[in-house]
């Protein structure tokens, strides 16, 4: 064997004696952070993706405000002030689909095998993914807020409530990232993840108070829409943005987000552990 063999001996793989690497919660957190960093550092390199994932909500804003806005009237609300919290909520929840698609891609391409063969905390792989997608969602949110302000949306409830409403929606979307994580580790391909992550979110976000008042719906739909956690989160943030009384919706929305996070992080992690692909 003679050809392009390197003569750099310093870098050669000198076998070491076996040693155990440190582990524990602190290291697991570091693993999750490193894994999140892997995804976050490529966000600015893929501006196309960021721009297009922001374009869609902007289109929705313009469509609903200028096309439907004239014929939809919500008693006691200016439609822009009513609509935009709904669009925000829908956008960040849609944004959670990145988790399913990204995870499916990493699994399909074998990168997850590499990660699983490394001495890192296994849940950190999923945590890193969900955290980085929330960061991406935050960026999208900032762009969307800027557009919203341009077309006349205001934090009528003041800055503090506006920020709280935003954080609430991001947390709510974070809990959906865990549903998406379960989908991502369960489906076999990126294509399947693409539809499986989206298809149920359309009825969920439209059968809600995001775009219209649920009281205008037929009874059966209204019952579903009122129960829909997406309605609750939308109502909570809408009340906060507009300085209205949110009633029980804020803590209900937080409870939903916490519950979904706990249940689906457990499910996704255990599915991830037992997942066997060849």
């Amino acid at each position: 064997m003679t050809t392009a063999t390197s003569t750099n001996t310093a870098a050669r793989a000198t076998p070491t004696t076996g040693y155990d690497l440190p582990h524990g919660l602190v290291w697991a957190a570091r693993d999750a952070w490193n894994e999140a960093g892997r995804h976050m550092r490529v966000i600015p390199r893929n501006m196309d993706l960021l721009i297009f994932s922001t374009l869609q909500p902007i289109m929705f804003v313009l469509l609903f405000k200028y096309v439907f806005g004239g014929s939809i009237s919500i008693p006691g609300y200016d439609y822009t002030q009513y609509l935009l919290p709904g669009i925000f909520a829908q956008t960040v929840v849609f944004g959670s689909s990145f988790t399913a698609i990204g995870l499916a891609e990493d699994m399909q391409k074998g990168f997850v095998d590499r990660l699983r063969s490394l001495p890192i905390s296994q849940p950190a792989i999923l945590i890193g993914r969900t955290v980085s997608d929330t960061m991406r969602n935050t960026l999208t949110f900032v762009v969307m807020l800027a557009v919203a302000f341009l077309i006349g949306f205001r934090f009528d409830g003041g800055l503090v409530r506006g920020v709280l409403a935003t954080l609430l929606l991001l947390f709510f979307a974070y809990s959906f990232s865990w549903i998406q994580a379960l989908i991502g580790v369960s489906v076999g391909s990126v294509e399947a993840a693409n539809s499986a992550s989206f298809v149920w979110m359309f009825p969920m976000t439209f059968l809600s108070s995001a775009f219209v008042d649920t009281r205008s719906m037929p009874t059966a739909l209204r019952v579903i829409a009122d129960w829909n956690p997406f309605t609750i989160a939308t109502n909570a943030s809408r009340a906060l943005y507009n300085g209205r009384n949110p009633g029980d919706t804020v803590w209900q929305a937080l409870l939903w987000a916490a519950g979904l996070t706990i249940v689906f992080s457990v499910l996704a992690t255990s599915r991830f552990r037992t997942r066997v692909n060849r």
Partner: protein
Amino acid sequence: MALIEAIGLTKRFGDTQALNGLNLSVDAGEVLAVLGPNGAGKTTAVRVLTTLVRPDAGTATIDGIDVLADPGRVRSRIGLTGQYAAVDERLTARENLELVGRFFRMPAAQARIRAGELLATFDLDEAADRAVKGFSGGMRRRIDIAMSLVARPQVLFLDEPTTGLDPTSRLVMWDLIHDLVTQGTTTLLTTQYLDEADVLANRISVVDHGRVIAEGTSAELKAKLGGYVATIVFADATVIDGARATLAPLVSAGSSIEVHASTVTLSVTATTTTPQITRLLDGAGSAPLDVRIEPPTLDDVFFALTGHRDES
């Protein structure tokens, strides 16, 4: 003690019995090639040994540590290069290497230094800061192997390291692996290529239908199966009839002597030597011009063991 040990591994996926009582053992410093056709269970065996798949039955240890009971400790000792280049395409080559270093608990500075060393070794200096997305197949495979070496693992697993590479990249990869293993990295590699096992490994386990059907050094395997072919060239075709009778006792059971013009070929056992043939023929007055004995190719070995030809 064996650094890699698998005893009675069994694994079924639906209707497919991927592993069916597989035994493997690799000592420190050894290179074992697991040779077999597609679907023989090679990849599943690697996945069990690298903690990615739980077997239905059997035990596996790395450096004496049980793969099932203590996967975390096993993972800190192994390096894995899977069948498909497991590289984050969005990142640069350097970032991929540093990431693995960070996951191996290296401080940032150390991870950076180690990445630099590997980039130099694997001749990826120039491409170091480009996204892997634009790399050729050979470059991807190199960065993939480099990633499995970041922590200087005790045990290295290479699952079909050259499958899908063009012939040139394949030779480059052979050089790299040859370099690695001659420095004593205990290695288990799987391959469908008989020549690859011959070139890179000390020992070969031939796997078919989830179990080892033969094992030994390349030479041992060949000897065990016979199939050595002696080719004898005569200056004068008229002596051939006489030579036939002289050579008859040397012919392996079940085969015959073939004659093409002034050339005679026959199957002999591994213990037959060229001087032996020359002496015999000289004594019988039919001196040959040239006598050669060629070992069987691993292709022949595989055919003899499995009854089917490897398609590659």
